[in-house]
């Protein structure tokens, strides 16, 4: 260990300056760039809000679909819903996702789900249901913007949709009415799962982005000099 005069004086000066500036700097100096923390928190809140919104919307919509879709224990096999992005993922895989991938997956999933949901909107029957769906779509649009905002703050590029893979809603005649309803059912179910997952995703990000105490100290020193 090579201690030199310059070092010790520097350290002393550093200490003095830090002490001197300590009262001048507000206890938790967060006046500067707040970082991605608040926007992540907001996105997290939004997923919770959407989850809550979807709960009542899904109830109404499934009632509109009629039995057996509105039966509580109705659990059909996932038929023909392969185009929907799947939220379920192996826990280990989920844990090992990095921030960028995590956000990208969320963004892509919701852009697809939003497209499908807009199709749903067109078919919906009652005016009240249409209004709820419209509002839910707007909210989902807001979530997309929110995720995009977080990604921008963290410096990640937005995933570009490949021109060929743009999902389209085809209410074509190939679908029987029952299968159509099945698709709707699965869309709502998948949305629900995605919202659960996103809440977890953003909670994880939120915890990760919380600035540790050391960062504050560093901030202080940067102010000192």
């Amino acid at each position: 260990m090579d201690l030199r005069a310059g070092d010790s004086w520097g350290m002393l000066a550093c200490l003095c300056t830090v002490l001197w500036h300590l009262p001048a700097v507000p206890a938790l100096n967060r006046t500067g760039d707040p970082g991605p923390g608040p926007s992540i928190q907001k996105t997290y809140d939004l997923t919770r809000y959407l989850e809550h919104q979807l709960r009542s919307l899904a109830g109404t919509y499934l009632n509109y679909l009629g039995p057996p879709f509105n039966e509580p224990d109705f659990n059909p096999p996932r038929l023909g819903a392969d185009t929907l992005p799947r939220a379920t993922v192996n826990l280990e895989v989920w844990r090992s996702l990095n921030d960028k991938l995590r956000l990208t997956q969320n963004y892509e999933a919701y852009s697809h789900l939003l497209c499908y949901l807009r199709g749903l909107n067109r078919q919906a029957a009652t005016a009240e249901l249409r209004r709820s769906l419209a509002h839910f779509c707007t909210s989902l649009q807001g979530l997309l913007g929110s995720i995009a905002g977080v990604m921008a703050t963290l410096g990640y590029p937005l995933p570009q949709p490949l021109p060929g893979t743009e999902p389209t809603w085809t209410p074509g005649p190939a679908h029987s009415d029952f299968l159509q309803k099945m698709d709707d059912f699965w869309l709502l179910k998948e949305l629900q799962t995605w919202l659960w997952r996103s809440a977890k995703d953003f909670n994880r990000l939120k915890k990760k982005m919380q600035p540790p105490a050391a960062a504050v100290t560093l901030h202080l020193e940067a102010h000192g000099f």
Partner: protein
Amino acid sequence: MSMLQIWLVQALFIFLTTGSMGQLLDPCGHINPESPVVHLGSNFTAVCVLKEDCMDYFHVNANFIVWKMSHFTIPKEQYTIINKTAASVTLTDVASLNIQLTCNILTFGQIEQNIYGITLISGLPPEKPKNLNCIVNEGRKMMCYWDPGRETYLETNFTLKSEWATEKFADCKTKRDTPTSCTVDYSPVYFVNMEVWVEAENALGKVTSDHINFDPVDKVKPNAPHNLSVSNSEELSSILKLTWINSNIKNVIRLKYDIQYRTKGASAWSQIPPEDTASTRSSFTVQDLKPFTEYVFRIRCMKEDGKGFWSDWSEEASGITYEDRPSKAPSFWYKIDPSHTHGYRSVQLMWKTLPPFEANGKILGYEVTLTRWKSRLQNYTVNDSKLTVNLTNDRYIATLTARNAVGRSAASVLTIPACDFQGYLAESTCYLITVTPVYADGPGSPESIKAYLKQAPPSKGPTVRTKKVGKNEAVLEWDQLPVDVQNGFIRNYTIFYRTNIGNETAVNVDSSHTEYTLSSLTSDTLYMVRMAAYTDEGGKDGPEFTFTTPKFAQGEIEAIVVPVCLAFLLTTLLGVLFCFNKRDLIKKHIWPNVPDPSKSHIAQWSPHTPPRHNFNSKDQMYSDGNFTDVSVVEIEANDKKPFPEDLKSLELFKKEKVSTEGHSSGIGGSSCMSSSRPSISSSDENESAQNTSSTVQYSTVVHSGYRHQVPSVQVFSRSESTQPLLDSEERPEDLQLVDNVDGSDGILPRQQYFKQNCSQHETSPDISHFERSNQVSSVNEEDFIRLKQQQISGISQSCGSGQMKMFQEVSAADAFGPGTEGQGERFKTAEMEAVLDEGMPKSYLPQTVRQGGYMPQ
């Protein structure tokens, strides 16, 4: 209102005239502009253009034009004749909001004929809307409102615009009757920030308000909590529990509450402390209420963090606290019927019913007990507020308690004296005299007073003692005298205090005190203090008390010792820090680092010692304690550049030195001697980094040693060149600079190698440069000396660029000695060596090989 009527009439007139003219006859001309809107207070110019055929018909031209404004002729001075057919009029400082301006011609000299008329509307451009804010009523759409600024007198449209970062929403246009607010027709999305602003536009201009950016959830006005209900508790009469149902927004945000209550009939509301209701809940227990009282409650809520708006108040709900036992019994009195017979008397006890705030519930009855002197107890339960009993002539004690569903009050007591009661009062005894008023419906509240028949001086004086003794003051305290020794009302106390030798001092103290502080006492002195209490009749001294004031006040010693210790500590700390920083200097003066020749072995310099350090490390650059950061940085910058160009020449010199070593050992020896660095080598870079400073000092010490201890360096004293020594003496800084610089280069290994050749003494790199050039030019020693002198002067002249200069000189020296044998060959070797150095700078193996290769030469 009347103004409006006038306008209407005028408008109607204009409408009729222009209308009839337009329909019935083709107008004889027109006014330009047709329907102007002007800024209030500005100037306005209108031009009337006559038609040719009309002019011919009426035999008029522009000179005949007469302008009228609301039926008043405008003075000719304001007219301007433009040409034969057109004339203009300029109105200055337009102040009316609505002006009818007509263009007329004077036909046939006198008759005024209307040609055309316009309505001039004036007003103001809109002001920038201010204080824009929005509110989201739960479950409804967002409404924004603003302050539109001054009146414009014109039709002004306000448009509310809103957008997300990613999307625009539809504009919201205000309705005519609500120009200061607009309700958007979409439900806002919580937790997504939106930007909102308002645009105001009229005929005179368009302005935009400041943009506001917010999260709609921060503008929420929740629905009021509903189904508020109140319930009481049988256990606690001072509480009421409120329960309510929150609005649905509690699923989205956390809430805080505001609960108010008042007793029924009161008008002012009391508030529950906000900090008690600062989180989402659906019930609350209000405490500290009065028993058996009806309270009215209401509640409202808002977002927990205070952003947004309070909800409306909930509907009011009321509840009654549970009963408590009566807080006191009514005071009561007796009335003795004078017609007593045969040792008995009729006594009527009476009292008032308790007021509700003391009854604490519904009074179920009163209980009276009567006790004859040391005799049996008689109990009565009464619902009324009076009781008549027949008593003997003895003294009785009566008690009265009130009872409700919860319990009984404390008893109030009354003594009914014996029939033959005779008063006897003693002197100097305190009596409590109580008077109770008795009204027709019962007794009132009694009043009491203390009194003496005759006062006397106290029979004992108060005992004084110290509570606290300080350096210059003492706090004295004493107890109030007991009533039976007071013998009167104590009016005041006198404190007497004196030192052993001094006069007695007296202080008067009010009788209400039981404590007094004596101040301005002398420290470390014995004081005697006593105290006297006085009634109106005289006083009495108490016992004397002695105390000694201490020499030092409390904490005084600490106040002296602690700063002294701190100062000492600080001084020591600074001293240590100073010594630490100047340790090289101190070491140089006190215990110079003299190398122990006996520990110096050629073997130690064995090239097989594995290198352990990456000598490009920055640490090494800074290793010398005598350097400031600045100078190091400077040198680093200076040194990096010359190195590559001069590498070859340097290498060459080193090689040459090696090659000449064998046959010019004397010179080599001298070079070793003059070198002052024991070690700068890549092989022990770590060690050198640690003791570089000492080694630098060592070089100085050796120099001084060289001067003062000639024998110790005797072996090396032979030298034809004293300049290196001179140089290092004069400019140790330069030496160090160069050392440092070299240390960071890849040259060092070879210096190490040189050192080995030179037995004990290592070569200071810079000097070795000279030496090498010296050796190179050993063919012509005189030339060399000259050169060297040049070099030295060059170095001593320029500090900063010393290193660069030196390299240049060295390369010059290289060119200087063309007579050296085998130069081409050496060049080759040097090149090879450079390559090898680059390839494996940490290995000595190639050097060893080279050394071996050179040895035979």
